[in-house]
C-alpha cells in the first residue's frame, strides 16, 4: 500500500508542466489533487516513472465566469471545494451545486480537483456526468498546440479519454444556466459518498428533456427527448435502460441497474420540471 518509486516534479508554471509531459509522455502522470491518483499509486495499479505536480501551479488555480461566452471556467489545479463553496454557484451552474454533495466526502473535495475527476473519467463519477449533461467542453493543451473538445467526444470509455499523453487538461467549461432551464440530480450508492451504482442528471426546458446517466455504460450517456409525460416518459426511460447495456458486477445486477435508470431517471426529470 505504498507507491512504487517515481521522479517528482513540482511545476511552478504551465510551461514547466507541458515541458515535462512533452519529455516523458506516457511515462508521466499529472498529479493535481491526487484524490484518485494517489489511491491508484498506493495500490500500485499505476506505476508511472514521473509525477508532474500541478497542485501549486498558481496560473492553473483559477475559477472564473466568462460572462460573454456564458460559461464557468475551472482551471486544472482548482479544487472541487473551491467551486463548491462559491457563493454564486447555485445561480451560475445549479447542476454542479446539486452534484457536489454526492462526490465522495468534503475532506476529499477539499483537495480533489474538478479537472482531475474529468481527466480520470471514471464512468460512475459525478463531474464527468454533469459536464456531459450540460454539453460542456474540455481545454487540452500540449507544448505544441491547444484544442477544445466537447465533453461528448472527450470521454471515450472506462478511464479513457481523448487526451494525448503530452496533453494537460488545462481547464473545463461548464455552460451557465440559461433562462427557462431547470435541473435535477440524484444517484444511488451503497453508502453516502461511495461510487454511484447509477447517477442521473436532467436538464428540462419548456419544450425538451435532456437526461444524462452515469455508472451504467462505459461513459456518461445523454438522451434528448421532447417534453414526454406519463406512460410515454416511462416508456422512453425503459428503452434507455436497455440501450445503456447494463452489466452484472460484484455489487449489483444488470436488472437492478436498469430499474435504477427507470426510477432515478423519472425522479430527476420530475425534480427538474
Amino acid at each position, binding site marked *: *500500500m*505504498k*507507491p*512504487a*518509486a*517515481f*521522479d*517528482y*516534479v*513540482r*511545476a*511552478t*508554471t*504551465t*510551461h*514547466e*508542466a507541458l*515541458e*515535462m509531459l512533452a519529455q516523458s509522455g506516457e511515462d508521466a502522470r499529472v*498529479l493535481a489533487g*491526487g*484524490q484518485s491518483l*494517489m*489511491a491508484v*499509486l*498506493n*495500490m500500485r495499479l499505476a506505476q508511472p516513472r*514521473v*509525477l508532474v*505536480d500541478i*497542485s*501549486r501551479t498558481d*496560473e492553473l488555480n483559477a475559477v472564473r465566469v466568462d460572462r460573454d461566452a456564458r460559461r464557468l471556467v475551472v482551471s486544472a489545479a482548482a479544487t472541487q*471545494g473551491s467551486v463548491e*463553496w462559491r457563493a454564486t454557484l447555485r445561480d451560475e451552474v445549479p447542476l454542479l451545486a446539486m452534484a457536489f*454533495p454526492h462526490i*465522495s*466526502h*468534503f*475532506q*476529499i473535495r*477539499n*483537495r480533489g480537483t474538478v479537472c482531475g475527476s474529468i481527466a480520470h473519467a471514471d464512468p460512475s463519477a459525478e463531474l464527468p456526468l454533469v459536464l456531459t449533461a450540460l454539453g460542456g467542453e474540455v481545454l487540452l493543451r500540449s507544448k505544441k498546440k491547444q484544442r477544445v473538445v466537447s465533453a461528448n467526444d472527450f470521454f471515450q470509455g472506462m478511464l479513457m479519454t481523448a487526451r494525448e499523453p503530452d496533453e494537460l487538461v488545462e481547464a473545463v467549461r461548464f455552460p451557465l444556466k440559461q433562462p427557462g432551464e431547470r435541473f435535477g440530480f440524484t444517484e444511488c450508492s451503497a*453508502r*453516502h*459518498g461511495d461510487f454511484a451504482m447509477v447517477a442521473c442528471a436532467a436538464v428540462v426546458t419548456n419544450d425538451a428533456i435532456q437526461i444524462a446517466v452515469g455508472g451504467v455504460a462505459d461513459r456518461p450517456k445523454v438522451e434528448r427527448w421532447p417534453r414526454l409525460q406519463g406512460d410515454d416518459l416511462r416508456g422512453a426511460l425503459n428503452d434507455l435502460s436497455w440501450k445503456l447495456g447494463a452489466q452484472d458486477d460484484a455489487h449489483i445486477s444488470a436488472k437492478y441497474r436498469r430499474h435504477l435508470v427507470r426510477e432515478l431517471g423519472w425522479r430527476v426529470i420530475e425534480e427538474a420540471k
Partner: protein
Amino acid sequence: MSKSTPYVMRHGEQHAVTLTLNGRERSGHCETRELLSDFLRHELGATGTHVGCEHGVCGACTVHVDGVAARSCLMLAVQADGRRVDTVEGLAPAQTLGDLQQAFSRHHALQCGFCTAGILMSCADFLQRVPDPTEEQVREMLSGHICRCTGYTPIVAAVLDCAARRRAQCADTEAEHA
C-alpha cells in the same frame, strides 16, 4: 507563460522537506514516494495521526493542510514542503484537551480511539465552516470516516454539543461587549 526548467526530485534519493507542524517549523528527509502520513509519524514522530486504509476511504489519517481537512495518505510528503500542517496534537496545545475533545469525552464518542484523531480534525474544519450544523449535516460530514466502535451516535451528539457551546460562548462575549 514564463519559461523555466522544472526541478526534478529523483527517486531513491532523500529530499529535505520543511513544514509548519502545529505552529512549529519542522524539517525531515524523505523519498519522493513517501506519504505525508508516514512522514508525520516516522520522520517527525507525530504519531497522533493514525493510518488505516491508505487509500482515502477510512478517514483515520485526516489532518489539516493550510487549514483545511485532507487525507494525509493521499498526499506526498514532498507536496507538503512549505505548507502548514495541523494534526490532532495541535488540538491540545498545553496538554489540556480542547473543547471539541472535551465534548467527545463527555459523550463517550470514542472507544478504541483509532479513528478519533482523523474525526476530530474533520470536525474542527467542519465547525469552522458550519458553526450551527443540523444532525443531518454532521452525519454527512462523518460519512467520510469509519468508526467500528461507537455506532456514530455519540460522535454526532458530541459535535452538536460542542457547536452549541461555542455559539453560547460567542453570544456571551457579544453581550459583554454590548
